[in-house]
């Protein structure tokens, strides 16, 4: 296990280094450096452009620039936003907190509901309910998350007018207690969460179902049944427990998918998190903010992958022994 962890940690460090290089290449070396964007629409003469380039250090060697960039990052300096007129760090940290609220709630629901429905469908393989869940999962998986968000707003916020249309809190609300504030947050959380869960739950249903069906056909399941154990115990303790490994693997990949989902949902619902931040940075072409968002999304996903690799290792009885 120690050796495994060492290997994984080395790989983690290498991957994070690659993320830094990618980020640098994307935002600093690709055509259109910051000066081009600042100079756009302003009539700057060559001397002014040269001064700007020197100011941003773009006249120095590539390697020099990379070192400066890493140095800034190490000091927690994520750059200066053109549109917010302030440094990027605090903006991103505030947004990250708001995103975590949304992503935590929806991820718990996605995995929990997905596994439950998947087990339910597998246990009734071939039944009408099973068919409905399989087809339903395929349909829901084909839905664009942002469009589901638009539909939910139209249905529940505009037509029925029972839930807030956007944002995280009611504008200018004054809360007498923490609980009323929390209730307001919860009301705003309902629709974005449903949008994320409806689309993403599908793959967990399908994976749990097919993994459990494969497990149920194995010999040790027949043994468990032959021992006369209660069917429910056979299903959960012998079946589901062994069928969960692919679900853990799916969770690994889900970290990347959930970033995609949160960008769409936050954009549609104006949820003030990282997703809306990167959307707004695209609209306003605020490259430092976009860069910080990309970096943080990538680092978080890489770390999540590392964590779930380790969890997988701890869970898998076959790997655990070696």
């Amino acid at each position, binding site marked *: 296990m120690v050796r495994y962890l060492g290997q994984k940690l080395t790989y983690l460090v290498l*991957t994070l280094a690659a993320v830094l290089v990618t980020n640098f290449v994307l935002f600093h070396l690709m055509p259109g450096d910051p000066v081009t964007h600042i100079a756009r629409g302003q009539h700057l003469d060559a001397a002014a452009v040269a001064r700007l380039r020197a100011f941003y250090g773009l006249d120095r060697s590539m390697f020099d620039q990379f070192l400066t960039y890493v140095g800034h990052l190490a000091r927690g300096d994520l750059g200066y936003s053109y549109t917010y007129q302030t440094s990027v760090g605090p903006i991103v940290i505030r947004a990250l907190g708001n995103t975590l609220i949304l992503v935590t709630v929806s991820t718990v629901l996605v995995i929990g509901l997905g596994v439950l429905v998947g087990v339910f469908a597998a246990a009734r393989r071939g039944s009408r309910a099973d068919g409905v869940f399989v087809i339903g999962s395929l349909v829901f998986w084909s839905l664009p998350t942002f469009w589901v968000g*638009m*539909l939910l707003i139209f249905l529940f916020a505009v037509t029925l007018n029972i839930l807030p249309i956007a944002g995280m809190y009611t504008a200018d609300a004054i809360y007498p207690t923490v609980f009323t504030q929390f209730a307001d947050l919860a009301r705003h959380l309902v629709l974005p969460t449903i949008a994320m869960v409806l689309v993403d739950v599908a793959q967990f249903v399908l994976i749990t179902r097919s993994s459990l069906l494969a497990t149920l056909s194995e010999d040790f399941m027949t043994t468990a049944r032959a021992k006369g154990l209660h069917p429910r115990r056979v299903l959960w303790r012998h079946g589901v427990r062994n069928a969960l490994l692919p679900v853990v693997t*799916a969770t690994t990949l*889900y970290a990347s998918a959930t970033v*995609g989902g949160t960008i769409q949902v936050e954009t549609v619902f104006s949820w003030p998190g990282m997703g809306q931040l990167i959307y707004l940075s*695209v609209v306003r072409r605020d490259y430092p903010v976009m860069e910080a968002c990309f970096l943080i999304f990538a680092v978080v996903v890489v770390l999540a992958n590392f964590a779930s690799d380790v969890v997988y290792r701890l869970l898998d009885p076959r790997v655990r022994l070696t």
Partner: protein
Amino acid sequence: MTGPMMEPNLESDAVVEPPAHGWRGVAYELWVDRMGRIGIITVAVVVLIAIVGPLLAPYDRGAVAGSREGILQPPNAVHWLGTDELGRDVLRQVLAGTSVSLEIGLIATLITVLIGTLVGVLAGWFTGFIDAILMRITDFFLVLPSLPLMIALGAIIGQSLPMIVLVIAITSWPSTARIVRSQALALREREVVARARTVGLSATGILWRLILPGVLALVIANAVLVIAGSILAEATLSFLGLGDPTRTSWGQILHNAFVTGAVGNGCWWYFLPPGIGIVIVVLAFSLVGQSLERILNPKLAAIA
């Protein structure tokens, strides 16, 4: 969908055999499979609409409303699906968008599959050092969150159609590469390959005649699923304002609807049809792709 469908089963050690009764046999099995048939019929109808649609309702860019009453009209006898914020006919836009969305999805898939197959076959063939390097790169792209990468690339390299296609391909080739690699690895260990070597067939000869045909079946099944993902990716990018504003894809219509407040104003006729179009096409390609996978990989069929 917010990411590629995860398919842990595909990367198995088992070799997926080329179809026993040739491609005609596959076509037959696809037609016999209920989901496959529904998918194929739907795809055929959509392709027909994409070709014929613009002829039936020629897309006229200049057809904007001359008066305030002409904009955001609910469906009526003249405009079956109402009008948008400029008074343009929504039905016309959705019909025209069909071919744009399909076109982008297909071209992006072609590039994705080309890159993925190339990397996968090379990694599976050379093994050792080259394999390790290629797979590290593949894993790295697999772990990078794809939508932020697409957004960054899209914002930096531009919003023309070829660039959007490239952006989608850059972010979606890794899963194809992984699937192809495991198949190529398995094929490589076959006796046929050893014999071909003994007979003196060159490495390129073996690659062309034995490995590539061997991975082809899997690549095609995968490609059909990639089309679904690419169409969704294009819709998402366009929705976020990174599409080609001169080409009205379904995602572009939804973007226009969103930024002009169609949802808040209850203009359902504006944002409902393009979304339904996306869902139908994506679902149809998924059905065909999954059906193909079951046919080509009976191991999957056993548990489905």
